[in-house]
């Protein structure tokens, strides 16, 4: 199964839940009225699009109905889909230019979002392009997180730098920086322990890791990714905001998108925080992570 098919399949439920419901709702209305608008708003909210983003979408929709003098509910449905597409197409992940080696990728997120697995998959993506990758085992807190990552590193064919559980993660990253330089690696990927964004000291610890990287590799391209579980509700917006303060998040890795009625949160994140999605994960296999392509996502989601 190609990735597009997988993506389409993964999004089937989201589609059914969001687009399918919109189409169904439209069918039961013969004219455009407030009930229709309420119905549409409800559909958006129940797909995790979020209250404020949903309300904004509906307000814009009302405006369009007025200015374009729409009469047919079908037109309304298409207009809403256009508005939603536009949110995603407004912002695209812009790859910063490569500088001196190694390129650094720092991955962070709350507990259980899928950081370690995502790193395994990103590493595989890079090694299969012939890049030399070093992985830093920066999650020194969770039991057996280091072992878990080491297995992924082996699968991906990447070098692995680790210390003991409980050691200072910034020190692990520092070691990995030295190792990356010595082995002239193309990429250094740093894992970090899962942390809830409202824990001040843990966010400071994360910021320290970021500063160590910036200080030791001032000439390198540093990309910072926040991993978000697609099942997450509106809290994802808080996560993105606070993590951005600590590590200036460049892009989001949206994981577990192979499930059910989820992923609506992506609209909230685009709308409210303007952080683009860089990768999406649609399965448990090592190849199930790909660059996020807004067009492809929109096409898969809105495909007939």
């Amino acid at each position: 199964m190609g990735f597009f098919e997988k993506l389409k399949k993964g999004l089937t439920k989201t589609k059914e839940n969001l687009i399918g419901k919109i189409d169904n709702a439209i069918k039961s209305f013969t004219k455009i009225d407030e009930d229709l608008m309420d119905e549409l708003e409800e559909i958006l909210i129940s797909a995790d699009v979020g209250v404020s983003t949903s309300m904004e979408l509906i307000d814009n929709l009302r405006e369009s109905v007025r200015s374009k003098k729409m009469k047919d509910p079908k037109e309304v449905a298409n207009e809403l889909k256009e508005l939603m597409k536009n949110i995603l197409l407004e912002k695209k992940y812009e790859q910063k230019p490569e500088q001196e080696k190694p390129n650094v990728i720092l991955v962070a997120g709350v507990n259980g979002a899928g950081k370690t697995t995502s790193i395994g998959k990103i590493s595989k993506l890079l090694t299969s392009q012939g890049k030399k990758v070093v992985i830093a085992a920066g999650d020194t807190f969770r039991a057996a997180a280091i072992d878990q990552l080491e297995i992924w590193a082996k699968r991906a064919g990447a070098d692995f730098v680790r210390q003991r559980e409980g050691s200072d993660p910034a020190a692990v990253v520092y070691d990995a920086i030295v190792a990356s330089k010595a082995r002239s690696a193309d990429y250094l990927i740093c894992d970090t322990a899962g942390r809830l964004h409202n824990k001040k000291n843990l966010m400071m610890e994360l910021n320290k890791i970021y500063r160590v990287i910036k200080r030791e590799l001032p000439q390198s391209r540093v990309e910072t990714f926040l991993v978000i579980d697609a099942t997450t509700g509106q809290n994802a917006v808080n996560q993105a905001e606070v993590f951005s303060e600590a590590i200036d998040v460049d892009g989001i890795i949206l994981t577990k998108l192979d499930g059910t009625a989820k992923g609506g949160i992506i609209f909230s994140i685009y709308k409210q925080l303007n952080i683009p999605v860089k990768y999406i994960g649609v399965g448990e296999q090592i190849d199930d992570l790909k660059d996020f392509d807004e067009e492809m996502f929109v096409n898969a989601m809105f495909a007939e």
Partner: protein
Amino acid sequence: MAIFEGLSSKLQDIVNKLKGKVRITEKDIKEVMREIRMALLEADVNYKVVKDFTNSVTEKALGSDVLESLTPGQQVIKIVYDEMTALLGGTTAKLTYSSKPPTVYMLVGLQGSGKTTSCGKIANLLRKDNKKPLMVACDIYRPAAIKQLQVVGSQLNIDVYAEENNKNAVAIAENAIKHAQRNGYDPVLIDTAGRLHINEELMQELRDMKAKVKPMEILLVVDAMTGQDAVNVAKSFSEELGIDGIILTKLDGDTRGGAALTVKTVTGKPIKFASVGEKLNDIEPFHPDRMASRILGMGDVLSLIEKAQESFDEKKALEMEQKLRSKGFDLNDFLEQMEEMQKMGPLDQLLGMIPGFDSKAMKGLSVDENRLKRIKAIIQSMTKKERSNPDIINASRKKRIASGSGTEVQDVNRLLKDFEQVNKLMKMMNKKGKRGLKGMKNMPFPF
């Protein structure tokens, strides 16, 4: 910042709006319900659950008793609170034990919801009841998942049953039960692999396991941050496997945990535990009434008191009270109190439970745990004499203490000033009240 306001502060705004009113009209109630609806939706409570909730509250609030009561504002709040408590499950639910040991519990849930950590936490909790738990590693899929449970087990000193090379989770679970019977373990906690509720093959594995090990309870582990999809997760696990209870994890985050309302309503099964931190003892029985009052911004008074009781030694409190009455409070006591307090958990968590502590005002006010550490270091760098008689600390002593504790002289000064104030406060209280320290527990923290 709008997105930072929790449900609690949102509802508090609403409640305040109603507070001043003598008479509430139907229009008032409608308006309030609209805001409650929005607040609950933003807290990720499922759409349908919200609808049912607001409908039933509106109905009750519209009853003539309320409208004609002298304090309709309070009445409406009470109805909201009562309904929310009822929705969350009424009273506290406990784990049930089998009459024929060992009692078997299965933990199931999505990837990353926190099964393995919860497994350790619950085993640890049950051990406090003089049980000899056994944890079973049945996550044969995720790399190092078995190792993770083993590490948790060794941290807690609780035995773990694992078969590294067995690729049949059901067989491992069966063997574990036999192992438990032979060696007198009870209860047995089975940690299963994370899975999507739509993954037919893996759901079948759970059904097979259930048929073989006949668990007393199947506990569904749910991340408190889950969005609208919580409804589907809860429904699928409940309908396809059957569950007996719910464990709500990551409640120490800033999510208001709307998922809690959803899963409880959808499954009809009680939430039995709340996981509230990264340490292995950060788990509590779930109290629906407290959760409801927390959501409504009434503070989690009961939790706070319970926590204080668990970690604060009665005898020490009595000693301290006597000391206070006889000659006053010295730096040794100050240090001791601080240590007791740290046992209770992170300070911001504790403060959040105090009623009247506006969650809005709390934002930005971060409690600096490091400052506590520094204060501890300073006191520990003092001699015994200095600690019991801080008046003798002169400039050169201060210098020595500062360098001994790795701080500045200003830090030492600040501590001494803080201490002086606490002491004044204590003396005042001592004169005033006969209740003394014991009645107040360890109240006066200067931070």
